[in-house]
């Protein structure tokens, strides 16, 4: 039987894709929290005052160093990045799927959403 991609099948695949992303992300975050508690369990907390710790190029290098050290904060951050990437992956999938369906209008619409997402992830302030 030839594989036919229709809207229903597209949505089912999307659902699985999203679930996979969430399971992966939450596993990483859970592991990160466990490590974090192991190291910092008895320290005091303070989230009353806001200290901007922006996610920058500088930070990206720190993050890579943190991962290689097995730092808890870095593991949680990677999990959060995976989580944010999950709905983006869904839109990428939609662009491809609509293109395979030869639906030009919706390929363009999904590509538009993807452009907005990529713009905000890379350049948004």
């Amino acid at each position, binding site marked *: 039987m030839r594989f036919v991609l229709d809207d229903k099948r597209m949505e*089912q695949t*999307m*659902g699985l894709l999203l679930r996979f992303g969430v399971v992966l992300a939450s596993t990483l975050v859970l592991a990160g929290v466990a490590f974090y508690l192991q190291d910092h369990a008895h*320290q*005091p907390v303070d*989230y009353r005052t806001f200290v901007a710790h922006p996610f920058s190029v500088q930070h990206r290098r720190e993050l890579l160093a943190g991962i290689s050290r097995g730092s808890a*904060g870095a593991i949680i951050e990677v*999990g959060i990045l995976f989580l944010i990437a*999950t709905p983006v992956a869904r839109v990428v999938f939609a662009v491809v799927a609509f293109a395979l369906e030869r639906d030009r209008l919706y390929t363009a619409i999904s590509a538009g959403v993807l452009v907005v997402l990529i713009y905000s992830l890379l350049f948004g*302030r």
Partner: protein
Amino acid sequence: MTVLVFTLLVFTGSLAAGLLGALTGLGGGVVLVPLLTLVFHVDLRYAIGASLISVIATSSGAAAAYVREGFSSVRIGMFLEVATTIGAIVGAFLASRVPTRGLAILFGAVLIYSAWLSWQSSRLHHVDVPANEPWSDRLRLSGSYPGPLHREISYKVSRIPQGFAMMFGAGTLSGMLGIGSGAVKVLAMDRIMRIPFKVSTTTSNFMIGVTAAASAGIYLRRGYIDPGLAAPVMLGVLAGSLVGARLLARAPVTILRYIFTVVILALGIEMIVNGWLGRL
């Protein structure tokens, strides 16, 4: 408070928020931010950042279950996501320009409005009106969903420009306050665009994650998302909403909804008072 105690308490609170959010259909985000700011004295910006992350998790986590039912429409969702994602960027931009007090007051107003909507929807009976809509077909938004006795019920989409504009507003609110603004999205689809309720709620769930992802990058860059806080919030809300979705068939939804409405109303008033007095 030590990190261990704080993490466990925040996890438990988020679990309850996610559970109630799923059972009442209002989402966990609306109670989460007031819970973090008013009870745990977290800075509003950290609270909004953590809430946004939990919104992405619940939207994506619930998607697989929603898809199986066959109500959601990928086309309506994708079409309206153009409006919500652009709105989310504008909202995230505004969030840094508006003072925290202003955000708290806006948040309070949204809470009170959600309480009003929730109160109203429990009394109003929804009627689907079939309509002749040329643009609905032209934009390929018309669709069908499984009805009783394996019959497909077809529908069309009305008042597309108005719905699109309202979706932009929903995106802006989401980007400013770190909530899913599912209630506004359902309102736009159900009441304005006359999309059947089941289709509206399931499609809205899909859209919430994409909308939130559009402001998440900006939040990350501004340092709103603190790993130590976002992690227990995300895990708690996700677990709570998944359990809530399972309990939905057996839970006393009407009573819960009534309690939740009162809670939201009280939190809304408290957010406005605290924002006004500059205590957040």
